[in-house]
């Protein structure tokens, strides 16, 4: 009861709170920050010139350029699990030596292999910045996005092993058939189902939105599902990603089909197959607490949805 009252207050008081949020203090802080930045920039910049009287005077004045540190490259050995269905019967491991820089990622190494050494290497990538979820792969035995795996985080005295994610049919090199994965996703009805037609928007309090915030972050890269030992042996298991996306709607206060999704997942191949291995939580490149979300769906099946 107390909770619901608080929620109402929240929704009503939201705008008021924003108004009274002491803008003066914030403005002060901002001013301080800018002056401090400017001072430090003036004092530390080696290339700022001393004032001169005329252009002629400045023309032959020696310019003191700050020394630019040339980043050093180093050799990294990548062992990539290649598979060409037209040639190979079995996947094979192939070594590549790549010159890399401290700031680069495994995706850059794959680019360098594809662009400079072996154009036949096949892998998916789209945005290359950890948003589209195309380049999930198994790097040194752990599922990650190649575009978020920094070379400096690996022990480069040893080779880095790169292979396709497991549990989905391998098509070529690092590319797998994602359709079984998307089938599971589609089955849990991943869209908002609400009967009413509001004037403008469907309202929600901050607390209600917060309830499922974690699971809205999913980018469907399949890193979690293909790290799950249950999914490896039973491809019919819905898998963590589908359950995470069901969680996103089950705990959405605007959605009216929670029970439908719970019934779908309350199946032989549903949430009960999960044994809390935590591989999915480890693998998620978005830091979603996947195992926790699955546990909450289980709990909702036993004791009802608590928004």
């Amino acid at each position: 009861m107390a909770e619901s009252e608080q929620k109402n207050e929240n929704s009503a008081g939201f705008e008021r709170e924003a108004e009274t949020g002491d803008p003066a203090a914030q403005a002060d802080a901002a001013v301080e920050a800018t002056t401090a930045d400017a001072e430090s920039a003036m004092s530390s910049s080696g290339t700022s010139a001393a004032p001169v009287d005329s252009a002629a005077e400045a023309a032959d004045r020696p310019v003191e350029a700050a020394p630019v540190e040339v980043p050093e490259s180093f050799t990294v050995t990548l062992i990539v699990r290649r598979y060409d269905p037209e040639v190979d019967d079995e996947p094979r491991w192939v070594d590549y030596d790549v010159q890399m820089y401290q700031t680069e990622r495994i995706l850059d190494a794959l680019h360098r292999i594809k662009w400079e050494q072996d154009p036949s290497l096949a892998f998916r990538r789209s945005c290359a910045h950890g948003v589209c979820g195309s380049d999930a792969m198994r790097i040194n035995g752990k599922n990650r996005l190649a575009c978020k795996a920094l070379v400096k985080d690996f022990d480069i005295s040893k080779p880095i092993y790169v292979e396709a994610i497991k549990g989905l049919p391998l098509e070529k090199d690092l590319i797998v058939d994602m359709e079984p994965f998307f089938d599971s996703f589609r089955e849990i009805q991943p869209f908002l189902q609400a009967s009413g037609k509001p004037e403008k928007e469907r309202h929600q309090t901050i607390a209600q939105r917060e309830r499922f915030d974690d699971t809205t972050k999913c980018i469907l890269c399949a890193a979690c599902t293909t790290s799950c030992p249950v999914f490896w042996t039973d491809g019919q298991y819905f898998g963590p990603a589908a359950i995470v996306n069901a969680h996103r709607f089950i705990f959405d206060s605007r959605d009216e089909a929670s029970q439908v999704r719970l019934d779908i997942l309350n199946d032989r191949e549903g949430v009960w197959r999960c044994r809390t291995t935590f591989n999915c939580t480890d693998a998620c490149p978005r830091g979603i607490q996947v195992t926790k979300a699955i546990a909450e769906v289980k709990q909702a099946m036993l004791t009802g949805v608590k928004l």
Partner: protein
Amino acid sequence: MSTTIESPNYAYPARSKGRRGPNLEKAGWIFMRASGVVLVVLIFGHLAYNLLWTPGGIRAIDFGFVGGKLADPFWQWWDVTMLWLAILHGSNGMRTIVNDYVHKPKIRTVAIGAIGVAAAVLIILGTLITFTFDPCPTAADPALLPEFCASL
């Protein structure tokens, strides 16, 4: 302005559609958790009574001690509950491990069948012995038997 689709073209019925009967995976999942909690109490109670409560600890456990315990209905039911829960819990865990590691369907069926048979034999034998155990066999050395045998 919100947009709604009256009848979405959605052609993905759940894979569970048309599946009948009880959801054994769910029952198994709940059983594993519930039996786990009960087993912690039963097993530590069993160990505490046998090793800490009884003077002499492990050295005092002999035929007489066990015979005396199995003549008491309280301990009969304690032991039988522990037997059933432990064997079912353990063999269900073994089944999960087999499902994980045995990929060939035939070998998997055989392995899970063997686990089931072993569990059934252990449960039936254990239950039978607990309730039909004779603590005072005739023609045995009275020094080895429980104390109450002398008064029979």
